C-alpha cells in the first residue's frame, strides 16, 4: 500500500484538516510551516545464555509542527492527534513569528523518487515465532566457530516507520521506512585473558533480511581475527602514517569532513570549512559523497524529513569543496537547492542537516601497494565511535583492531587505541586512494543533537600523518 489516502487514514486526518493546522501555525505571521506525522513500531528480541529470554515491541505516534520565520524556528509536537491538541501545538510553534526576520524561499522539488526500500516481507506481519529461530541459529553458528567463546549475546531489532509530511506550499509526501538490525557480541576467554568482538548488520529492508546466509556471514566475522586480539599490543604513540582499511574507515569522513560540511554549522560560521567553498581541500581525484539513494542502505532516504527528494550529493568533487549538506533553512539562506539532508530522530525534533550514507569513491591504487609504500605506521582494520570539534576541526576515532606497518608489511596486531587528527590537514594529507570502495553495513548511528541512522564507506586510503594513542 503506497498511496496518499492510506497515510491520511493512518493518522486519521483529512487534507482539509492538514490545511487547518497549517493555517493556525501561520496565524501569527510565520513564513512557512510544515507538519510531520509519524507512526513507528519497534520490535526486539534478545538472546542471552542460549535463550531468547526477553523481547518486546514499542509504538510511537504523533505529529511535529514547525513554523519558520526567516531562518528562525518555532517547534512543537503533539502525541495526541485529536484536532484540538494539534491546533494547540500549532499555536505554540507559531510564537516564533514574533522574532521578526525576512521571508525566505524554502521551496524544493518533491519529484517522485524511486522506492529505495520496498519490503517483500513486512516486519509488522512477522511475529516473534518466525524470528526466534534465526537468533538461535546465529548463536549456534557463532559458538561453533571457536572453543574459546564463553558468552554470546545477540539482538534482533526492527522498526517500520510511516510518515506523512505536508507544508504550507501544499506539498504532500509520504513514505514507509523499514529497518532491520542484528547485533552480536561474543566474549572469548583464553589462558586467563578475555576479549570480546561485536558484529552488526543493518539495512532498510523487511523480514527477508534474515537468512541462514546472514547467520553464516555474521558467525564467520565474529571469529575472524580473534587470535590477533589476544596477541595485540599497544603501539608506541605519536604521529605516524595511517592506512585506513576499506569499509568502516568511512567514519573518518563522517567525523573529519561530513559534520563540518553540514550547512547549519557553516551558516552560523562555526565550521572550520565555513569559508572554503570552491577551494581545493583534498588532492585532485578525491570525490566524497553523501548519498541518500543507495537501495536498502541504512542511510537511504526516499524523502528527507522535510519532504525533499533523496539525492546523491558530491561534497567534494575532484578535491574541491563542492556542496554543503542542506536542509530547507540553510538552502534558502545560501540561495541553493536543498540537498535532502533535513533529517530528524522522530516527530519530537525539528529537522536539521544530517548525513545519510557518506563515502569516498574509489581511486586507482592497489590496496596492497598502499601498504607496501609505508615504512612505519598503523593499518586500521576495525573501528568504532568517532567525534569531532566543529570549530577546530579536531576529530577522533577509536581503533578496535589493526596492525603495525613496518617496512611495507603488516606486522604486530594492535587494538584499543584512539587516533586524533585535524580535518582539513588530514584531507590535504591523503596520499593514496584504493580501488576497493566498501560500504560498511553496521548499525552506525550519528548523535548530533538527535540520533539518526547513517552509514559510511571508504576505499583503502593512506593519510600521511595522524596522532596515534599508545604507550
Amino acid at each position, binding site marked *: 500500500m503506497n498511496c496518499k489516502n492510506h497515510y491520511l487514514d493512518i493518522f486519521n486526518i483529512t487534507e482539509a484538516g492538514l490545511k487547518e493546522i497549517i493555517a493556525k501555525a501561520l496565524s501569527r505571521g510565520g513564513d512557512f510551516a510544515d507538519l510531520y506525522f509519524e507512526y513507528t513500531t519497534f520490535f526486539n*528480541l534478545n538472546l542471552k*545464555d542460549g*535463550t*531468547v*529470554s*526477553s*523481547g*518486546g*515491541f*514499542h*509504538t*510511537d*505516534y504523533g505529529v511535529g509542527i514547525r513554523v519558520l520565520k526567516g*531562518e*528562525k524556528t*518555532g*517547534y*512543537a*509536537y503533539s*502525541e495526541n492527534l485529536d484536532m484540538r491538541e494539534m491546533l494547540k*501545538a500549532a499555536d505554540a510553534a507559531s*510564537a*516564533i513569528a514574533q*522574532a521578526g526576520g525576512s521571508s525566505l524561499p524554502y521551496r524544493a522539488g518533491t519529484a517522485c523518487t524511486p522506492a529505495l526500500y520496498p519490503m517483500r516481507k513486512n516486519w509488522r506481519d512477522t*511475529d516473534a515465532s518466525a524470528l*526466534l529461530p534465526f537468533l538461535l541459529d546465529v548463536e549456534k553458528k557463532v559458538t561453533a566457530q571457536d572453543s574459546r567463546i*564463553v*558468552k554470546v*549475546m545477540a539482538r534482533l531489532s526492527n522498526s517500520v516507520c510511516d510518515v506523512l509530511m505536508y507544508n504550507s506550499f501544499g506539498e504532500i509526501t509520504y513514505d514507509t521506512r523499514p529497518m532491520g538490525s542484528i547485533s552480536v557480541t561474543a*566474549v572469548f576467554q583464553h589462558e586467563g585473558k*578475555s*576479549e*570480546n568482538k561485536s558484529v552488526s548488520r543493518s539495512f532498510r529492508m523487511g523480514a527477508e533480511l534474515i537468512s541462514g546466509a546472514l547467520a553464516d556471514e555474521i558467525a564467520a566475522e565474529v571469529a575472524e581475527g580473534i587470535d590477533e586480539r589476544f596477541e595485540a599490543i*599497544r603501539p*608506541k*604513540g*605519536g604521529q605516524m602514517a595511517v592506512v585506513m582499511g576499506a569499509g568502516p574507515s568511512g567514519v573518518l569522513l563522517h567525523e573529519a569532513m561530513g559534520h563540518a560540511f553540514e550547512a547549519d554549522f557553516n551558516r*552560523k*560560521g*562555526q565550521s*572550520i570549512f565555513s569559508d572554503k567553498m570552491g577551494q581545493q581541500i583534498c588532492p585532485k581525484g578525491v570525490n566524497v559523497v553523501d548519498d541518500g539513494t543507495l537501495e536498502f542502505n541504512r542511510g537511504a532516504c526516499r524523502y528527507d524529513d522535510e519532504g525533499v527528494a533523496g539525492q546523491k550529493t558530491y561534497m567534494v568533487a575532484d578535491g574541491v569543496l563542492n556542496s554543503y549538506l542542506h536542509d530547507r533553512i540553510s538552502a534558502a539562506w545560501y540561495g541553493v537547492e536543498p540537498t535532502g539532508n533535513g533529517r530528524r530522530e522522530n516527530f*519530537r525534533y525539528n529537522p536539521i542537516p544530517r548525513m545519510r550514507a557518506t563515502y569516498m569513491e574509489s581511486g586507482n591504487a592497489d590496496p596492497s601497494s598502499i601498504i607496501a609504500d609505508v615504512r612505519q605506521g598503523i593499518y586500521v582494520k576495525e573501528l568504532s565511535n568517532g*567525534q569531532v*570539534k566543529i*570549530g*577546530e*576541526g*579536531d576529530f*577522533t576515532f*577509536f581503533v578496535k583492531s589493526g596492525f603495525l606497518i613496518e617496512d611495507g608489511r603488516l606486522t604486530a596486531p594492535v*587494538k*584499543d587505541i*584512539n587516533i*586524533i*587528527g*585535524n580535518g582539513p590537514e588530514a584531507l590535504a594529507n591523503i596520499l593514496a586512494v584504493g580501488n576497493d570502495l566498501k560500504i560498511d553495513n553496521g548499525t552506525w548511528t550519528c548523535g548530533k543533537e538527535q540520533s539518526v541512522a547513517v552509514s559510511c564507506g571508504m576505499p583503502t586510503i593512506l593519510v600521511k600523518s595522524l596522532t*596515534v*594513542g*599508545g*604507550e
Partner: protein
Amino acid sequence: MIQAHEIEIARHCISFACGNGADNARVNLNKSSIDSCNMLNGELDKVTHAADRSIYLYLYVDGKYGTFSTNMLEKDKLEDFILKAIDMVRMLGEDQCRKLPDPSRTERNARTGRELGLYDEALEQSDSDSRLGRAYAMSIWNDENANHSEEYHIISEECEYSESYDDSITIDSQGFEGRHTESAFSFFAEVTVQDNEGNRYSGYWWDTTPRKDAADPAECSRKALERAVAQIGPQPRRSGRARMVVDSSVASRLVAPVLNALNGSALQQKMSFLDGALGHKVFGEGMNLMDHPRTEGRNGSRMYDSEGVSTKDAPVIKDGVVCQYFINTYNAAKMGIEPTVEDASRPCLMPYLKDKELADGEISVSLRDILQFCRNGILVTGFNGGNTNPVTGDFSFGIEGFAFSKGKITHPVREMLITGNLKDLWNNLIAAGTDARPSSRWQIPSIAFENVSFSA
C-alpha cells in the same frame, strides 16, 4: 503532570494484564514537558514546546518476560496492546530468573514524588515571557561586539534556556507504588571565536538545577567565551608520561567505565574488567567512591531504582576495595548472589591528597590546590572521543586542556591522547578535590593521576 485518572489507567494495566494471563507485571507511566528558547548571535532563533507521555509494561508470563511501551494511553488501545504483548511473551524462551523484586526490598514512602525536594512549583508560574527574558539575558553578543578584543573576534554565540519537568509513577502487581517528580531549570551556551590567524576555537558552559531561584544563567555565555579564548595559541608537546589533572567539569568521564564494570549486566555476561573484584583491593588507597542517593534537593537523588527497590547511602569503593556491585533482581538470580540496587544514583568521589592527612568535615581542595600539589603536568578540560574496552579496562581518549608548570597554567594543548588501563590509572590517583559541581548528578571533583601516557 500525571493526573489521577492516568494513575488509574496504570493500575488498570496491571489488573488487566494479570487478569489475562500475566503472572506478574510492572508499569511505569511517565509524563514530561520542556519549554526552551534558543538564541543565536543575540537574537531569538528557536522556541520549542514539547510534552511527552509514555507507558512501559514489564510482563512476566509463564516464566517468560517481555518489555513493551507505547504513547497511546487510551484505555481500549492499551487493552489491545496488552493482549498482543502477552501473546508475544508466550513465544519467548523460558527464564525463571525473571521476577519482580522481593516486596520487602521495595520503597514504601515515595508516595507524592516530591519527598526529595526535587520539584519546584515555581515552574507552574513560569510563562514564555519570563523564559524569553532569561534567554535574552544570557547573551553577551552585543556587549562583546561593542567592546571587541584585539586578539580575537566572536564568530557565533548560541544560548539555550529551558524549563522542564519529569513525572513518573511505577506500580507493580505485588503492591509497590512509587512516584518521582523533578523539575529542571537548565542553561547552555557555546561560543566560537576566531583568532587573528584565522583559527577557530569553541567553548561551552552549562548548568541545571531543580530550583528556579538557584538557576543563574547570566554568566553562562561569558564562561563559555572564557573557555574558548583560553584555547588560543596551543603549543605542540612531545609524547611521554606526565601527571594529569582532570577538571571537575569532565572528570566523570573516567568514573563512568568503572561504574559500568560494577553493573550486574556486564558482570553476568563476562563483559567487565571488574569481574571477581568484589571485596578485593583493585584501586589505589585514595579511591573512595560513595553512593548518596537520598540527598534532598540535589540532582540525581531518588528513593527507589527502576525496579522500585529502596536506595540507600552506601560505599561503592572504599580505600580502593570494591564494596558493592549493582545487581538487579534478574542478574542476582542468574549469578546466585544477593541483589542490591540496579545502578548508582548519585556517586560521590571523596577528597584525597596522596601522603597528606585530610581532616574530616573541614576540608576544601580546589583545582588550584591540586595544580599546586602536582606542580607539573597536563590539565585536561575536555575529552575528544575515545573508548574503553569493557572486558580489559584498556582505554584511549582524545584530550584537550593546558600544560601547567610549578602549579600554574602555561599554555593550551590539543590533539593529544591518553592511553592506559583503568585499574592502573586509578591506582595512580594522587588527588581528588572538593570542587564537584553542586548541580551535577555525579559528584566527581577535579582529580589527579601520576604516570599517565600522553601521545602527541
